[in-house]
């Protein structure tokens, strides 16, 4: 009897202990956050005082931590020299914390939950829910007041990038964009194969849909590598998730969120429009190519890096790719086959005879957020601003002079260390310098061609108006479930021919019923508010 009572008391005690520790765990997290914001408000007060004494403050070395997913994991000599240069020129000390890039998302989450924030954090995905929640709970500082003193940042960044960083729906900008060049990429094509099957592409690299199919068909059926075997395919394709989608969408007008010409909504992404059949045409196009066997049959199980390899091996002849990487492809392909020549299709024309497209709507590839741990955010902004000034841009683009390149006459010549200069190039970029993406050691005969092609791709780019916005409807579990499972799988089935293209009508209706209606409505509200 006594034992039973003892057991009961012990079990009750245990339960109570569990419950207390449960709440204690939650509580301390909140306390940390409010403590940080208290620190922040007192820090910003002292900031206002010290702004007047900027000159003397700048003389002190300011140390801050930078948290980023730079690859490769090991810092090269070139990057070390670069950071030393940055530190010298800006009188700062940068402590780099580089977690393994393969687990960056988890580390970001832990960092945010842990409450011990590094001063500068690289955020890779501006639509990530974890990030948006962190912004709302005040982990990151709004940077508007500091950006006033950052002329280079303002000059060399797309306006739409700043708008995309107004993450709380008000005027507060929560980060410094890592600008990428907004462009609509085309395709690298085997020129030696084109010669063999007797096709030429126009000077500006723009082809019609019919010409594109002609090329891809000839590459599959007419033995373009001349080895007597039927072992080549026209179009390279890959998927990370195992799901397939239309390989050519831009020529059918699927260019993200734009002003609608009809229908109930002011802005529409034609993929989701019930009034337009553009997306169905895109599906049909890819479905036809697949049925005829003109696409790499390994598509459903091939990831991007493998599909690049397959192109380099000569299994496929057309691959969607950025023109600036042509020299790298040649470097890998020429040792196996010295006859390889590459050229570029800048795009496929739509029904109006124009090439237009766009693959990302924010203008940036990740952004730098400054957390509440930063005692002197203005010093940090200064560093980023310097990187876009003429001196800083030289270093960020090419590396430290004398280390990664030397100047011979009026040309820059890459040294052996140039190719190891990676981290420095992943911080900030100028939006008007496509030369950034053309490596310094590109052969001189290729350089003008690459710049021309990249220039065309930049000109034909159209910004999608969504600015990377994630409507609240996207968090609806039914919506997520439908988009990731039913929608994605049905599209794949349509493409391989298991279902007819007309099945898309029913699929789209289902999408609207499962949260799509709210999604479109909220997106419209957002775009309307931004376009004003």
């Amino acid at each position: 009897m006594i034992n039973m009572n003892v057991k009961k008391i012990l079990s009750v005690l245990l339960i109570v202990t569990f419950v207390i520790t449960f709440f204690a765990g939650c509580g301390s997290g909140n306390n940390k956050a409010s403590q940080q914001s208290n620190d922040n408000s007192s820090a910003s007060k002292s900031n206002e005082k010290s702004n007047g004494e900027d000159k003397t403050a700048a003389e002190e070395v300011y140390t801050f931590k930078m948290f980023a997913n730079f690859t490769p994991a090991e810092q090269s000599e070139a990057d070390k020299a670069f950071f030393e240069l940055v530190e010298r020129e800006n009188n700062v000390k940068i402590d780099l914390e580089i977690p393994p890039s393969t687990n960056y998302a988890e580390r970001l989450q832990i960092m945010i939950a842990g409450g011990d924030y590094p001063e500068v954090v690289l955020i890779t995905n501006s639509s990530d829910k974890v990030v948006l929640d962190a912004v709302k709970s005040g982990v990151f500082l709004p940077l508007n007041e500091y950006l006033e003193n950052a002329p280079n940042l303002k000059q060399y960044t797309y306006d739409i990038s700043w708008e995309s960083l107004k993450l709380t729906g008000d005027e507060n900008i929560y980060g410094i964009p890592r600008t990428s060049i907004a462009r609509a990429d085309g395709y690298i094509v085997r020129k030696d194969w084109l010669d063999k099957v007797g096709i030429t592409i126009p000077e500006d690299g723009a082809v019609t849909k019919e010409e594109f199919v002609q090329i891809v068909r000839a590459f599959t059926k007419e033995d373009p590598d001349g080895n007597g075997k039927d072992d080549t395919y026209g179009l390279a394709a890959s998927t990370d998730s195992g799901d397939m989608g239309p390989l050519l969408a831009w020529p059918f007008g699927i260019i993200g969120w734009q002003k609608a010409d009809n229908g109930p909504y002011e802005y529409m992404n034609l993929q989701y429009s019930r009034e337009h059949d553009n997306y169905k045409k895109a599906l049909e196009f890819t479905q036809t190519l697949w049925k005829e066997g003109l696409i790499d049959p390994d598509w459903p199980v091939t990831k991007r890096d493998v599909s690049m390899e397959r192109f380099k091996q000569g299994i496929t002849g057309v691959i969607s790719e950025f023109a600036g990487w042509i020299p790298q492809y040649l470097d890998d392909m020429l040792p196996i086959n010295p006859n390889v020549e590459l050229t570029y299709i800048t795009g496929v024309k739509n029904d109006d005879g124009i090439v237009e497209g766009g693959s990302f709507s924010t203008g940036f590839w990740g952004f730098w957020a400054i957390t509440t741990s930063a005692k002197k955010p203005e010093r940090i902004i200064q560093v980023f601003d310097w990187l876009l000034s003429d001196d800083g841009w030289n270093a960020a683009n090419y590396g430290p002079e004398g280390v990664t390149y030397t100047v011979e006459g009026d040309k820059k010549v890459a040294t052996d260390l140039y190719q190891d200069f990676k981290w420095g190039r992943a911080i900030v970029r100028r939006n008007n310098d496509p030369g950034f993406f053309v490596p310094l050691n590109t052969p001189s005969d290729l350089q003008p061609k690459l710049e021309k092609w990249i220039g065309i791709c930049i000109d034909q780019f159209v910004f999608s108006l969504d600015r990377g916005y994630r409507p609240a409807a996207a968090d609806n579990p039914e919506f997520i479930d439908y988009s990731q499972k039913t929608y994605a799988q049905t599209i794949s089935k349509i493409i391989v021919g298991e279902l007819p293209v007309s099945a898309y009508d029913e699929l789209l209706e289902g999408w609207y019923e499962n949260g799509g209606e709210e999604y479109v409505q909220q997106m419209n509200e957002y775009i309307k508010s931004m376009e004003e």
Partner: protein
Amino acid sequence: MVIKQSVKRHPSNSSLLSDILIYTILALIASCMLYPFLNVIAVSISDYSSYLENPTRILPGKINLGAFKYVFSSSLILSSYRNTIIITILGTLISVIVTILTAYPLSKKSLKGKSIIMNLLIFSMMFSGGIIPDFYLIRSLGLLDTLWALILPSVISSYNIILMKNFFTSIPESLEEAARIDGASDIYILWKIIVPLSTPIIATISLFVCVGYWNSYFSAVLYIRDQRKWTLQLLLREIILSANTQLLNAGGNFAELSSNNNPLQTVKYASLIVVILPILCVYPFLQKYFVKGIMMGAVKG
């Protein structure tokens, strides 16, 4: 006197046929397992262009040891090797000692509160707090960014304790009673009598724990900040998978996906070989103990 007469049994046709069938199937399975291994070795000592020419090769193409040179020149490989060896040795030692010390009292029927502790142990097998509470715990203990954070959390495995406890229960009490009559203390009984009798289970558990520590990488992801404290598996995962992660991070923006940023396939394979080599040397000899250990757990448990 027993005369052993060896009778030569001629195998009948049907058993010969089944032998051939079995050996063929085994050979096929073995070659399926052997092929990727040979492929990795061959590619790691070939030139990258030989790899592109024929990625499925078993025989190396143009020999180029550059990949191995690159791997060994990386200071991260050496430091992570050292870290993993330290963690494995220390972790196994501590874990085995703690497991013995926990399991022995639990194997005695006379221990008061034994069933409560056993229930707690089993309960903890089913639930875990999750990553964030674990992180808070390690941080509040001051273990963040130390190798101890990689060793201590997995020192106690409820499963191993139960295994060991069951084994101890099977040792006859009369042995202990005899030792006690002779004046032995509990500690003496444990270390001089029980442990030598339990070498099979201790060896098995050491093996399991050892392999567990060698393979662990996620704790390093959570708790380690300093690159020089990375473990081998974490580094290997980073080398092999960075291409895929970059792809996801690029978000469809090809300009941010330079193929030069990723280690070449030859370097990836060379890293694989470097990491796997110690296990390869040790495992074939210890394999039978593994099997014995699993059987032991199954029968006694």
